[in-house]
C-alpha cells in the first residue's frame, strides 16, 4: 500500500470537494438543500451509488471496451440508482416523498460519472472504493452545511431562502467564502516563503 496515495485519495473529498472545488452536481445541491434531513438523505444516497459504481467500474475496467465505456458506466450507475429508489420507496416512504423527485437524477449527477471516468477506470478496487467514500461524504457534508445554513435563515424569517433563488445565492456566497479562505491561505504560504521560513 502506498501511504501517500492512500492519504491523497482519502482527503479527496475535502481538497477536491465536489461542490466547492470541482463545481459538479449543482442541481441536487441547490434543489434539495432546503433542510438538513433532505440534504443528508440525498447526500447519503449519492454516496452509496458513488461507492458501488466506483467499485464495479474498477472491477470491470479491463473488460469494458474503450469505445462503449460511457454507456456501460451509465448502466452500472443507473442500476444502483434503481436499487436506492426501490429501497427508499419500501423502507423510507416519508423521505421518499420529499426527495424522491431527485433520486432518479442521481444517474445524471456529474460527480458519479466524473469519478468513474477520472478515477475508478484507472485505479484498483480498494482505492476506487475509498475515493467513492471520500467524495460521497465530501458531497454529503457540503449539502448538509448548505442545508443547515438555509434552514437557519428560513427559521429567522427569510422565506426567500426556501425557494430556488435562495439556494443559488447561498451557494454563491458560500463558494465565494471558500475562495476567500483559499486566497488567504495561499497568501499566507507565499508570505512564509518570502520571509525565508518554512512553507506550511
Amino acid at each position, binding site marked *: 500500500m502506498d501511504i501517500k496515495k492512500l492519504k491523497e485519495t482519502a482527503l479527496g473529498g475535502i481538497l477536491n470537494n465536489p461542490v466547492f472545488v470541482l*463545481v*459538479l452536481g*449543482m*442541481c*441536487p445541491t*441547490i*434543489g434539495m438543500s432546503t433542510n438538513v434531513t433532505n440534504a443528508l438523505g440525498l447526500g447519503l444516497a449519492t454516496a452509496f451509488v458513488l461507492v458501488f459504481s466506483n467499485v464495479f467500474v474498477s472491477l470491470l475496467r479491463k473488460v469494458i471496451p474503450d469505445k462503449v465505456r*460511457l*454507456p456501460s458506466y*451509465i*448502466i452500472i450507475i*443507473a*442500476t444502483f*440508482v*434503481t436499487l436506492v*429508489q*426501490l429501497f427508499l420507496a419500501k423502507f423510507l416512504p416519508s423521505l421518499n416523498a420529499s426527495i424522491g*423527485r431527485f433520486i*432518479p*437524477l442521481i*444517474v*445524471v*449527477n*456529474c460527480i458519479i*460519472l466524473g469519478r468513474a471516468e477520472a478515477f475508478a477506470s484507472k485505479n484498483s478496487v480498494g482505492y476506487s472504493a475509498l475515493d467513492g467514500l471520500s467524495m460521497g461524504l465530501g458531497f454529503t457534508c457540503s449539502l448538509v452545511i448548505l442545508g443547515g445554513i438555509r434552514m437557519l435563515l428560513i427559521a429567522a424569517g427569510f422565506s*426567500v431562502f426556501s*425557494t*430556488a*433563488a*435562495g*439556494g*443559488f*445565492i447561498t*451557494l*454563491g*456566497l458560500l*463558494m*465565494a*467564502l471558500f*475562495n*476567500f479562505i483559499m*486566497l488567504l491561505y495561499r497568501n499566507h504560504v507565499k508570505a512564509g516563503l518570502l520571509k525565508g521560513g518554512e512553507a506550511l
Partner: protein
Amino acid sequence: MSVASIITIIVSAILTDNIVLSKTLGICPLLGTSKKTDSAVGMGLAVTFVITVSSVVCYGLFKLLALWDIVYLQTIVFILVIASLVQLLDIVLKRFSPTLYNSLGIYLALITTNCAVLGSANMVVDMGYNLLETFIFGFFTGIGFTMVLILMSGIRERLSRAHIPAPFVGFPIALIIAGILAMAFSGFSGFAF
C-alpha cells in the same frame, strides 16, 4: 384537450415553472456554457431538440413498460434513450454543422448528463400528460432553458468588463446572478390560469 390547458403548459414551462430557475435542473450547463451568447444559443437549441425528442420517446416507452409491468426499469431505459439521442445529435452535427459542433465541444456529450433532460422525461410521466401535451411540454421546457441561458450569457458578457471582487470571480458571481434572475422569475408565479 382544450386550448386553455395547452396555453397553461406553455406558460408554466417557460415562465412560472422554469426548468432552471424554479425546478433547479440543468445548472451545470447554465454555469458552463453561458459565457458567450453564441454558444448559449447553440447549447440551448441542442438541449431543446434532445428534450423534445426524448420526452416523446420516453413517453412511448413508459407506456410499454407499464404494459409489461416493469416500471422499475424506468430510470435505466430513459437514460439509455437520452444517451443514444445525444450520440445521434453528435453524429448529425459533426456532419452538417462543424462550426456549431466545435463551439459546443465537450458540452455536447454532456447533454447526456444534463439533469434537465432526464428530469423533464420523468416529469412527463409524473404529470400523466398525453402525447400532444408531452410534445408541447418538452419543446417549451427546452425553450425556457434556452431563454435563461441567453439571459445569463448577456449579463455575463457585460460582467466580464466589470470589476468583481477576487473571491467572487467565476462561479460564485454566476450563481448569485442566477439567484437574482430566479427571484425575478418567481414574480411570474402570480399569473393565474
